């Protein structure tokens, strides 16, 4: 005879309770409560025939796959159990109670009176197996629980593990460091991380794993859980996992994609790599006469830039244009973007006219090159120089006529006032 019970609480009794129970009877109670609950059974009264290992009359409490208790008698002995004040808890949301009496009873036994209630299961404190527990935070509530994640993580579709958004990592520098998220702490689960190294065509990227390398693996199958895959141009590399990092990788490509996949389990600390890019080499350069190259290196390669500048008093001349510096770049094909220009002595050229003024050169052949000198003066006695300077200008290294006080600015010639050349007699009083 089976009784199905689905309420959140209730009570059961032996047949005829509180009168003695009949012999040769069997009753089974199946109690089912909602998921997220377990069942607590406790006896208010227990009086059964005792027998060795309760082979005669008994009350057996069990779940689908285990016997939780087997009671009989009126008090606990080394071979018989009575519930006493103890409650019996089911691990899950199902409990079956079987009452059985055999065909004879030596005396009158009043049987039992038991109660049961559904009790919330606190999954957050009880879940042991990794498969089921929350990855970061667990929140229990009556009848269930849910998981949440630390800042910066997203709850995965399994509602349990926490993944990160890491699909847009773009590296455009010629060198760089790439690591798994949170490295060297364990990397997040359930994540798909994409790292792209995108450099200008002409560069060749090399990868070098560093420090520790700890990606969940499997002794027999190649990287079934977590893995790194690398795509460089038409080449594909990996998957890589385990604790032995791959050797240096020269991708021969300027564009590299790295995929890092993690599943929803494992506590591995991840990986770190450095990358660098090199291009074709360009010929070594010689500085121009009266000039220098910066930076001066034994070797130059694609994208390297050098600045050509001249000694003081000289100017870079390129295609008849004068400038202070000139930049050349090592191109993809290993040639320089421009020929090295020459350094020509700075030439201030003809000085600007000064209204109502005169210019005298300090050299007979009216030199205008670096360090040459001229002198401005005003048409005396009718004009005077303002400010009152020597009027001496020197051709500077920048190729401009420069005065110690005014710099590149010219003075002005102002008319002299109130000074007639023909003076008159002293004023009479």
């Amino acid at each position, binding site marked *: 005879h089976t009784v199905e019970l689905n309420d959140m609480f209730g009570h059961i009794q032996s047949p005829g309770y509180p009168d003695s129970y009949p012999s040769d009877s069997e009753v089974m109670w199946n109690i089912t409560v909602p998921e997220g609950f377990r069942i607590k059974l406790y006896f208010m009264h227990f009086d059964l025939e005792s027998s060795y290992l309760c082979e005669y009359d008994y009350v057996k409490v069990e779940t689908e796959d285990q016997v939780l208790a087997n009671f009989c008698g009126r008090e606990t002995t080394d071979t018989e159990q009575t519930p006493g004040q103890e409650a019996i808890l089911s691990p899950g949301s199902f409990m079956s109670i079987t009452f059985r009496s055999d065909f004879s009873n030596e005396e009158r036994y009043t049987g039992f009176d038991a109660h049961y209630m559904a009790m919330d299961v606190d999954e957050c404190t009880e879940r042991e197996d990794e498969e089921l527990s929350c990855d970061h935070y667990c929140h229990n509530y009556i009848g269930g629980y849910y998981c949440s994640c630390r800042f910066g993580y997203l709850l995965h579709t399994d509602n349990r593990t926490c993944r990160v958004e890491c699909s847009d990592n773009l590296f455009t520098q010629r060198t760089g460091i790439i690591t798994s998220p949170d490295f060297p702490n364990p990397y997040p689960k359930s994540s798909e991380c994409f790292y792209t190294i995108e450099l200008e065509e002409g560069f060749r990227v090399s990868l070098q794993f560093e420090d520790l390398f700890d990606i969940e693996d499997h002794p027999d199958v190649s990287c079934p859980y977590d893995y790194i895959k690398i795509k460089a141009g038409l080449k594909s590399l990996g998957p890589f996992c385990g604790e032995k990092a791959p050797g240096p990788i020269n991708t021969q490509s300027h564009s590299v994609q790295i995929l890092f996949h993690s599943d929803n389990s494992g506590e591995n600390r991840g990986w770190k790599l450095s990358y660098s890019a090199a291009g074709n080499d360009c010929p070594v350069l010689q500085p121009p006469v009266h000039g220098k190259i910066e930076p001066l290196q034994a070797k130059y390669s694609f994208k390297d830039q050098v600045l050509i500048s001249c000694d003081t008093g000289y100017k870079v001349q390129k295609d008849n244009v004068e400038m202070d510096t000139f930049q050349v770049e090592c191109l993809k094909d290993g040639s320089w973007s421009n020929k090295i220009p020459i350094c020509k002595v700075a030439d201030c050229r003809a000085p600007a006219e000064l209204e*109502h003024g005169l210019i005298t050169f300090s050299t007979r052949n009216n030199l205008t090159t670096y360090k040459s000198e001229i002198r401005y003066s005003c*048409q005396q006695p*009718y*004009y005077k120089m303002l400010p009152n300077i020597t009027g001496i200008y020197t051709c500077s290294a920048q190729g401009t006529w420069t005065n110690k006080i005014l710099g590149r600015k010219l003075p002005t010639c*102002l*008319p*002299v*006032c*109130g*000074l*007639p*050349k*023909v*003076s*008159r007699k002293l*004023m*009479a*009083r």
Partner: protein
Amino acid sequence: IFNGRQVQKGTTPWIAMLTHPGGQPFCGGSLLGTNWIVTAAHCLHQLLDPENQILHDSDLIRPSDFKIILGKHWRLQSDENEQHLMVKRIILHPLYSPTTFENDVGLVELLKSPMLNDFVMPICLPEGPPEEGAMVIVSGWGKQFLQRFPDTLMEIEIPIVDHRTCQDAYAQLRKNVTADMICAGEKEGGKDACAGDSGGPMVTLDKERGQWYLVGTVSWGDDCGKKDRYGVYSYIHHNKNWIQMVTGVRN
């Protein structure tokens, strides 16, 4: 110029002659910097109706109605060093009153700069008020005694008169001598500027700097050379800021 003497060539290189197109001089002036002539405001407009002394733009003379001659010595004869310059614009002092001759100062901008030489040179602006009792020189081609015009530039050397004295002298005639005016002459009269000298320079020597500067411009008076009737001039130091604001000229 009443009771004056002939100017020695080259001693007054700043003097300018304002002439009508036909060559008739009608006022004097002084070269400031290289582009400006300072003269009397009353030289720069037509004669007004005595009954209606309000100045309109239409009363102003047009820049094309006159020209400036620098380096001039003879009144009518041409000089070998004279330079004829056209006028770009004229500017009267904003507070000029044609009835009281207050702020009787005007500026003429030249179309082109003259060439400076021994006979053409600007006058300095004053650095401060003239000394008490300073002697000043007034020059011009204006009328002499008996209303005759001179052949050459004439000048007088007269003392600056105390402002109160001058005010008293003209109070009897109900004429007001204001702070923008300065007087000069002898009490007994004699040496004086006269018609045709208007706008011309009154200068004196700054002994420290050794430079001549403009003290005033010939403005008005009661007749010419009369006793107790000092010549009244537009006081340049009083209006120096305005002049420098308009012309930008610095000594």
